[in-house]
């Protein structure tokens, strides 16, 4: 589980995150909110790209901010990006092996682990030596997710993995995301605008708006919450 206490990020006069307190238990948890709510900033703080002004994040009894960013990946913090970042010049295998070898453990079972991760996301029909540059958008997304689950991930942050994917491919993605906690033992935090994906995968969901936490709880309840509806649609009258 991961506990976020009084997390504040400030860029000049703007506070993308303002004293956020959330607790995510195990499983797949959603983080939603309108554009500019601070979701990606939240991920950037956790992965160390942005330094918080104040606050504390404790994940599985480990103070996250005590580690330099590349150590966090070794510890088990993994993430994907809003614009997919599979490395085009490398093969499927090398993309995933890149993360595995910097993780630094289980050298002996690298091949097995890497092929296992590719199989887990459903890319085992492809030759692992294929360059990622020739793959389509869906497969690249899956390569990114394979990179996020190889080895022993503890905390997997997925930033809009379904962006730009057609519905039928989102279904496969939902299946993969749902099975990460069970098979990899990791806590997943999913940011997405696709509400059906969030409903399909997340038991718990938190909602951010203008850097503040406005709701958190079981997904179905949260999505019925009037503050949440207001944040998404502007005013209640428009309903």
């Amino acid at each position, binding site marked *: 589980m991961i506990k976020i206490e009084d997390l504040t990020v400030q860029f000049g006069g703007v506070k993308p995150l303002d004293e956020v307190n959330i607790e995510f238990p195990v499983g797949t948890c959603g983080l939603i909110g309108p554009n500019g709510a601070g979701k990606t900033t939240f991920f950037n703080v956790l992965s160390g790209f942005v330094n918080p002004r104040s606050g504390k994040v404790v994940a599985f009894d480990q103070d996250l901010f005590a580690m330099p960013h590349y150590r966090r990946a070794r510890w088990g913090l993994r993430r994907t990006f809003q614009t997919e*970042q599979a490395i085009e010049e490398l093969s499927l295998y090398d993309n995933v092996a890149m993360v595995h070898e910097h993780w630094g453990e289980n050298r002996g079972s690298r091949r097995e682990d890497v092929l296992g991760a590719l*199989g887990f996301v459903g890319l085992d029909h492809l030759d692992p030596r294929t360059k990622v540059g020739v793959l389509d958008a869906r497969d690249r997304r899956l390569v990114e997710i394979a990179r996020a689950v190889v080895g022993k991930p503890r905390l997997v942050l997925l930033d809009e993995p379904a962006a730009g994917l057609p519905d039928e491919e989102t279904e496969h993605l939902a299946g993969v995301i749902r099975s990460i906690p069970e098979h990899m033992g990791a806590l997943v935090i999913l940011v997405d605008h696709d509400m059906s994906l969030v409903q399909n995968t997340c038991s718990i969901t938190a909602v951010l708006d203008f850097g503040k936490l406005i709701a958190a709880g079981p997904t179905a309840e949260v999505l019925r919450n009037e503050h949440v509806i207001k944040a998404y649609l502007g005013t209640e009258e428009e309903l």
Partner: protein
Amino acid sequence: MSVAEQAGSTGSGAVAARPPASRFQRGTVLHAAGIAIFVLLLFFVLPGLTSNYWLQICTQVVVYSVVALGLALLVGRVGMVSLGQIALLALGGWVALRIGFATGLPFPILMLVAGLITGLFGVIIGLPALRLGGLYLALITLMAAAAISIVLQQTNFPNGGSGFLGYSITGSGTAALRRPDIAGDTEAFFRYTLVVGGLMFLLAWLHVRGKPGRAWAAIRQSQPAALAGGVNITLYKLWAFALAAFMTGVMGCILAASGGGLTILQFPTQESISLLAAVFIGGVYGFSGAIVAGVFTKLVPALLDNWNLPPDLLLILFGVGVLQVLLTAPQGLAVQFPKDMARLGRLIARPFTRKSSAGEAAR
């Protein structure tokens, strides 16, 4: 429990049971055979065909190919431009001469030491790369190269004198480094250079194929993705600079023993810029591009000289070459030329194949 086992328990892990595919594809084998034949020809046939003068030029081509390879690694694999590589070559030569005259170290050890010390300087030149990129990094490395050149101009290259600088005004202007015993004459030294250059290419290939290569590819495309994958970006950027400088320093040692000694006039600062152009023309991504760059930097000027053409013609050639590569052959000549030749071959063969197939159809 490993990922594979976990995935296996869901039934999607069948891939682990698939027999491991052959690691080397047919194309790779053909490629390796081609390289082997090329190197063997250079090694056994070339020295018999040419004069000592041209053999010395060929030795320089090997040296500058390795320097170009270092630059190609930085530019093509990591995405960092360095305009200080020629100065590092001079520095490698200086270190080799200094230690060579002061001690009786065997030549291979001398190369190693020159490489390591130059590698250290490479890291220092590469430090700005941690904060800067693109044009700014190019400028900073160019300034650093100019600084090295100015210092070397003042100190001269060691000629067996005493003191830290090892330069004696009363001695002959330049002195060559003692060659290894097995490579005393020009022919043998060319072969020796070829072997050392080959080892440097192998070293670079091993890096690119392995963990550093994967980290560099990630850094080049997306630093956030590299960070998220646990890549220590600082370490791998500096490692690339160190490797390129190491290879360059080793070749500096070769250069110090190849002719009649070194002078700073051999290492004009602007040559780093034309080397970059040559690397672009040859292709930043492939290894054979570095050889093309070496040929363009050393063999083509010698040919121009031989034909009594003005040396500045080379710069015009480079301009045309870079334009051509940017417009029509982004992977460089080393990739484009074989493709063009294959196309030409098909074009020539077409009338014959068409005739024969027409003949078959008539029957």
